[in-house]
């Protein structure tokens, strides 16, 4: 009794942690996607994108703190989700011979039942993604009218090098399909996990959930497809 046991967080609290971190990651994705629009603009190509990347890095320590925070949210999200899933699996030792869908008010979908699978694929993808770009080869470029003509990182070159490889584009397509499924259940579910429920609110968030997931995934996927097609 009264012994502090950090692993014994209540199921409800676990779900709140998954939802808060999940929604924050969702918000990050939107900002990330909006920032990446610079890949499509700029003359010469890549100028806007490289300047945007340089602008972010110019925050120095603040940028590092933001990155670490993001990493922390990821770790918290997936460790809580995986731990929760481990308990869920042991809550039914004997499986059903037949399982089905009751229909009606049910929101059990392919996406909702594959959160761990899509999540783990996303994790593998994200490690690869960070290695490709954030920790990728450092090329330099200069723009006479920017940064006093001093060299800045040519991240655009990394992007074009990667996305001219059809296998990389294929890998991103798989990952983005996983993302659309994960967010398809995750978006409306986060609000429910936080206790935000209303007859209309829940109906609307649920009905746009898979749509939102798909729009964001397609948005990201346009980048490798566009770069591949112009090179």
């Amino acid at each position, binding site marked *: 009794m009264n012994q502090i046991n950090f692993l014994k967080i*209540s*199921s*409800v*609290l*676990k*779900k*709140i942690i998954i939802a808060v971190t999940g929604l924050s990651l969702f918000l990050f994705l939107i900002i990330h996607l909006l920032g990446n629009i610079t890949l499509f603009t700029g003359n010469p190509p890549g100028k806007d994108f490289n300047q945007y990347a340089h602008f972010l890095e110019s925050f120095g320590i603040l940028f590092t703190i933001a990155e670490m925070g993001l990493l922390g949210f990821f770790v918290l999200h997936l460790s809580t989700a995986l731990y*929760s899933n481990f*308990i*869920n*699996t*042991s*809550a*039914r*030792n*004997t*499986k*059903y*011979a*037949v*399982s*089905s*869908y*009751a*229909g*009606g*008010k*049910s*929101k*059990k979908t392919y996406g*909702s*039942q594959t*959160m761990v699978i899509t999540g783990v694929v996303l994790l593998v993808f994200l490690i690869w993604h960070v290695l490709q770009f954030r920790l990728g080869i450092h090329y330099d470029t200069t723009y006479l009218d920017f940064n006093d003509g001093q060299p800045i990182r040519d991240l655009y070159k990394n992007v074009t090098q990667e996305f001219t490889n059809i296998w990389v584009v294929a890998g991103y397509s798989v990952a983005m399909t996983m993302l659309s499924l994960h967010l398809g*259940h995750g978006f*409306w*579910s986060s609000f*429910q*996990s*936080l*206790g*935000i*429920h*209303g*007859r209309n609110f*829940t109906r609307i968030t649920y009905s746009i959930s898979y749509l939102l997931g798909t729009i964001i995934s397609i948005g990201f996927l346009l980048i490798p497809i566009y770069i591949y097609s112009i090179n």
Partner: protein
Amino acid sequence: MSDVISLNLQVWKQSSIDDPGSFEFYSVKDISIHISFLEMLDVVNENLQKEGKDPIAFDSDCREGICGTCGFVIDGVAHGPLAKTTVCQLHMRHFEDGQTLVIEPFRATPFKVVKDLVVDRGSFDIIIQAGGYVTVSTGNAPDANNILIAKDNAEDAFDSAACIGCGACVASCPNASAALFTSAKISHLSHLPQGKIEDDQRVKGMVEAMDDEGFGNCSNHAECEAVCPKGISISNIALMRRNLIKTIL
């Protein structure tokens, strides 16, 4: 259309808690479409007993859909294919002649199979004991309408109180979570002034008991609401979470 049908039943048979159990096949004929699913099993059992065979054990009491004693899974759906209906109120006219049905007990680690389709739902009692009540001083019964309750609150409380504790929500949940049952009991009392004052200790105690009993965590599949014979809404689960957040803030 004929008034009798034949069915092929694939029923889970398990002699005791420790028996691993297996499916048994029964071919049943001349079942009136006007009887309930449990009455159909009664007919099967009568014939089995005549042949000196072990009948299929299942739970039932009221057979009116109000006590929550009956329940098993038919073709992967708790309480069978008809929404808002317990198996005791599910009539055979909803099935087709020659149909094969797989009948399994409610499955969850905390719900031990006692025999065939009979499961021990004692974990629900433990959850109730952890806070599913109001503390009142005993004595004379208070006057009616001493405490005024708004109509909407009374209606909401009644909607939640409709839960009959059958366990279908747990059975249908991919995670074997007891969130719908527990939250229905929490909401029922939380909507009323008599219950509201003990909100904090109730939600903490009942959620802890639910976790300790070994139920899974709710992933918002909402399959529970779809199979619930009383149509208990997952809005109850949201209320439980709000109440728990309030204890932290």
